[in-house]
């Protein structure tokens, strides 16, 4: 229902510098940003493609069932049972997750509800430094300090348990800081409301705040799980790298990542392809975790609730 008597006159002229016919800086910027954006979205596909391409010979020449049913992992004599590594990866990372999440939650809760602000900020700074610590330092320390200690309990010391302990130490700073940020973003009115009802700090923190930020806690745990699953150096150093199914937590295990580091240097072409395949498996697990985090945090119309 436009007014027929008024014509749509040409635009007001303003002293914006045109960059040629009809091209504005705004338009150029928009295109440039869109290209960067496209690049970011494509990069996942490129990484996936390169890994898939590396794994293709293995997928083409070895039937997938053999990765589960071969008697052992001896690629030099064409035995390709990957189950021990898969189990090793899953057990170490889940163990680390189970250990690290409650501790991280305790740290975050203490920093937000109990410690005085100065102590909390010092503690956060320590976590920040530890989060940036190269994992090789954790592995190195674990091998020289934790492994001999575990060896006294039950030989040989390098074991699933050692891997779990060191990985937990490694991911605690990341998960604790993530949960801490979620707590610190809680609206003050919410906390004041709880205190005004006469709730103790423990009640406020564990029955109210934790429930409100539960998704953030869960995502932090999943991100920690992802880090533990992808960790290479630590597990190579402390888990013993034995490609066999463990029967107790004191048994050595080998993870998929350790498998790659151990063997990629002298692998024949088909062997290399199987190593790319183990990376591909990890990539798929990581994608699954990412989907889970995404569903939790960005689930369509329900806004992020932290």
């Amino acid at each position, binding site marked *: 229902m436009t007014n027929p008597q008024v014509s749509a006159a040409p635009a007001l002229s303003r002293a914006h510098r045109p960059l040629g016919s009809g091209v504005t800086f705004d338009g150029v910027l928009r295109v440039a940003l869109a290209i960067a954006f496209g690049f970011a979205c494509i990069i996942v596909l490129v990484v996936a493609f390169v890994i898939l391409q590396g794994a293709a010979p293995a997928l083409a020449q070895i039937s997938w069932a053999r990765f589960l049913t071969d008697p*052992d992992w*001896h*690629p*030099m*004599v064409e*035995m390709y049972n990957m189950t021990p590594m898969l189990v090793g990866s899953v057990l170490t990372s889940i163990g680390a997750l189970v250990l690290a999440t409650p501790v991280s939650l305790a740290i975050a809760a203490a920093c937000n509800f109990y410690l005085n602000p100065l102590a909390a900020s010092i503690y956060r700074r320590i976590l920040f430094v530890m989060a940036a610590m190269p994992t090789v330092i954790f592995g190195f320390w674990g*091998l*020289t300090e934790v*492994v*001999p200690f575990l*060896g006294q309990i039950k*030989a*040989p*010391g*390098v074991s699933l348990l050692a891997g779990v302990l060191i990985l937990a130490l490694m991911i605690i700073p990341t998960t604790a800081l993530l949960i801490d940020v979620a707590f610190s973003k809680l609206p003050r009115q919410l906390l004041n409301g709880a205190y005004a009802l006469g709730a103790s700090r423990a009640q406020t923190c564990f029955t109210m705040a934790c429930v409100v930020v539960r998704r953030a806690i869960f995502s932090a745990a999943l991100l920690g799980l992802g880090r533990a699953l992808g960790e290479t150096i630590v597990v*190579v*150093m402390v888990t*013993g*790298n*034995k*490609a066999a199914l463990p029967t107790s937590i004191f048994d*050595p295990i*080998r993870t998929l990542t*350790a498998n790659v*580091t*151990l*063997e*990629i*240097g*002298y*692998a*024949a072409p088909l*062997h290399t392809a199987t190593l790319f395949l183990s990376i591909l498996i990890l990539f798929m697990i990581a994608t699954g975790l990412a989907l889970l985090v995404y569903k939790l945090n960005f689930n369509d119309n329900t806004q992020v609730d932290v």
Partner: protein
Amino acid sequence: MTRPLRPLTTVFAICLAFTFNAANKASAEERLRLTGSSTVAPVMQEITKMFEDGRDVRTFVETGGSSKGINDLRKGLSNVAMISRALAESETELTAHTIARDGIAALAHSDVPLDVLSPDQLRAIFTGTVDNWSELGGPDQAVVVISKGEGSATSVVFNTFLGLTADKIEGDIVAAENAQMIKTVSVTPGSIGYVSIGAAIVDIEFGTPIKLLALGDVPATLENVANGSYQATRPLSLVTMGEMSAGVADLIDFSKSAAVSEIITDLSYTPVTQ
């Protein structure tokens, strides 16, 4: 430029200047790339430093394992491969130039009471038929077998010496590199593994609780490797493909010369006498 932005842009400008300056400094001299065995790489790292003195050449030593070295050489990604094993039958088109020898010896935690093991005993231990030191006349203590990654040059030499294939080895623990092997043995009572003699000697000097076991009646020492009485040895070689360029030939001659024997001895390997 708005003021709050200035520190950021300064940092970027410095980083950019740094990077482009680096990129522009293309050099005209000959460049040699060496890739391969992580055992040979430290040796060549030192040798090439000496080699470059007074020559118009730059060398880059990259590690990644003997097989990676061969692959890179075949693909033309490198000029020289470094290997710590003999050339395989499938690699006959290549030429190996041995620069040093390295002995592989069984290595045990110092609390292991035995000092000598025969090849048969070693075979029994590494295939899992013996799993307690008492079966070999020691105390009642479990044997912890530590092997190196399947296909690593050390493993191949050791297994070949014992006449075993990789799948027969029943290792409890697998180590990735020499130093990790030594460290793992040193923190695991009752453990036995195998390692390059030179590497172990360095650590024994630092007081690490490990010992090298004699093979049969020949003690695992550098002297015995040098005089040929110790059997489980491997060549450390440089490998070339086809016609060598002048620079490569020069490097190989230099690496075999007496000038570098001190470096090789310092790193606890045995130089090849010409």
